[in-house]
């Protein structure tokens, strides 16, 4: 039983870290530019499609992944340059709507180019097997790789934001945009850089999740909402908050999905318990968010200066 709980915890951690990769970009963009970007989920989807195509071309997962990252980043920068740049000064409603338009565009674009059927990404031999992380607990290597990658990225982001000059500008931008601009920093360039970073992280999340779920149209739509939940729980603009909230949400949802059927199964018939448990575990996250917002309206770790 403990092993099972531990295994489910790892699964939750893995989902949470994928969410974190997405939410980090979203929360950075929000924190610095005060911009709600619904199209972030589309960048995640496009990243996954890029990876699927490049893996097919090069016949190598690693090579495909390495190609997909800059492709996703370029797409993000292009989107920022063409459409989003004009929206920073607008109110949130305009941003929500315009980026909603971008979602429609990207979903349809993917359907036109890659077809409606969805694509699969084949795993390399190296990552396809299982490893025994604890005695008696085999765990898929690939999921383990996701966890490692997620933690690596979290560490990288921490170092970037806390220890480098760029990170200093990012933090300064988040607490007072105008002042940073007035001090002679090219704020537009900073925005584009941050957006590119966020897009690359979204593409990374997309390509990592490709092999465990099909790459398909609209895969970004639902995960996007989950990401918003994460950054609202964590506190808008806070990377640390996004990390904690993402892991919390991932673990909560997975645990709910794994154990609620058994708990409900003791007083309902199995198929009914299954569907109900699935709905309940999806709802748990939103209930958590409502609770957090009622008790701490600015989130768990509100970013300083807002």
């Amino acid at each position: 039983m403990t092993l099972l709980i531990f295994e489910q915890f790892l699964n939750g951690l893995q989902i949470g870290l994928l969410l974190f990769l997405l939410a980090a970009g979203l929360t950075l963009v929000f924190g610095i530019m005060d911009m709600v970007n619904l199209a972030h989920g589309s960048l995640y989807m496009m990243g996954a499609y890029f990876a699927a195509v490049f893996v097919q071309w090069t016949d190598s997962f690693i090579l495909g992944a390495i190609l997909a990252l800059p492709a996703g980043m370029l797409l993000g920068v292009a989107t920022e340059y063409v459409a989003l740049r004009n929206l920073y000064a607008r109110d949130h409603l305009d941003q929500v709507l315009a980026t909603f338009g971008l979602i429609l565009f990207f979903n349809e674009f993917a359907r036109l180019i890659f077809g409606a059927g969805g694509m699969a990404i084949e795993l390399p031999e190296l990552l396809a097997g299982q490893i025994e992380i604890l005695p008696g607990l085999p765990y898929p290597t690939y999921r383990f790789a996701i966890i490692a990658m997620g933690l690596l990225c979290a560490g990288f982001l921490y170092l970037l934001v806390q220890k480098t000059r760029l990170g200093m500008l990012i933090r300064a931008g988040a607490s007072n945009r105008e002042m940073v601009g007035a001090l002679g920093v090219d704020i537009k360039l900073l925005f584009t850089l941050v957006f590119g970073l966020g897009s690359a992280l979204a593409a990374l999340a997309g390509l990592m999740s490709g092999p465990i779920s099909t790459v398909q149209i609209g895969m970004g739509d639902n995960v996007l909402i989950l990401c918003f939940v994460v950054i609202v729980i964590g506190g808008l603009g806070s990377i640390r908050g996004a990390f904690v909230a993402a892991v919390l949400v991932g673990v909560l949802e997975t645990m709910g999905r794994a154990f609620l059927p058994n708990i409900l199964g003791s007083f309902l018939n199995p198929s009914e318990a299954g569907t109900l448990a699935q709905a309940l575990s999806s709802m748990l996250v939103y209930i958590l968010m409502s609770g957090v917002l009622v008790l701490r309206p600015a989130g768990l770790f509100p970013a300083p200066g807002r």
Partner: protein
Amino acid sequence: MLKSASLRFSVSTGVALLLLLALALVPVAAEVFDDPFLLTLFTRIVILALAAVSLNLILGYGGMVSFGHAAFIGVGGYAIGILAKHEIYAAWIQWPVALLMSALFALLIGLLSLRTRGIFFIMITLALSQLVYYLANGAYAYGGDDGLTILKRSDFGGLISLSDRPSFYYLCWALLALSLYLTHRLVNSRFGMVLRGAKSNDRRMAAIGFPVLRYRLTAFVIAGTVCGLAGVLLANHTDFVSPAMIHWTRSGDLIVMVVLGGMGSLFGPLFGAVGYLALEEILSSYTEYWKLLFGPLLVLVILFARGGIDGALGRGHGGILLGIIGGFFLLHGVHLYYDDAWAVPAALLMGAVGLVGLMQWLRLRKARKAGETP
């Protein structure tokens, strides 16, 4: 500053009344052209216009960006579906229950979400509507994610038969017209003034002594109930309810309708709903990938045409707008009646009309700018 929303006879009001009149003639047209699809399409348009009108009350006049409005369509629709499943068809039970459920649900969501503002309000309404979405997905007794088929429409006991499609259409039309009239009365009442005042500065309204939260909550509940009514109609129209109608992208569609038409104007949502759904219908008849065109179009509207259709009419761009729409419909007709070979010259002509419109718009803009700075 509050704009007077009186129903003085402006271009926009005239166009709106003509549009309502035209909508009233749809069943006749469907009969004459022997095209039942026309009636189906426009019933849907009228119902969604009703939902958009209700959203406009809180979004346009109240400044509350609710990104979960489709949840009320779901609550209203599911109330009908669930009662019908238990073989309760009497409208005298179904409709009040559905409206009461929508109102209670709006009260609950409003109480939770109105404590927050700005982006948090958008997010929490989104999250709470997702809650309803997953609830509907998990309601295995009522179809789960497959949805629930409604075997028999609401029964008004001989007063009106909802299965008779023209009667049903006229019921929807009358409710839409009624909702527009009531919105007009509401936003010009003292209540509406407080609501609009709170939109432009809620702290000042509170300082004057108005309990802003209570006013907002009341508006939220009214909007939720009217949207629940739209859900009731939609469930009766499609004879089917499913979680897909609550998905957050549906809420997005509703906001698009309101903003496309011009939020905070009485007839904006009507223009928006008709414009959005007619555009969807027309574009999708040309290409399966119509959203490829619609998505960027939406971005352009947000960037360059704030105020939407109603704003364009009010600024005297009505001629351009009507020209573009007229040209569009004309060429669409050409496309329908002839072969695809016509599509290319039609597109060229349409482009030309659009270009002329754009040039005139730029000219007007330039003239206005020159006039503004002495």
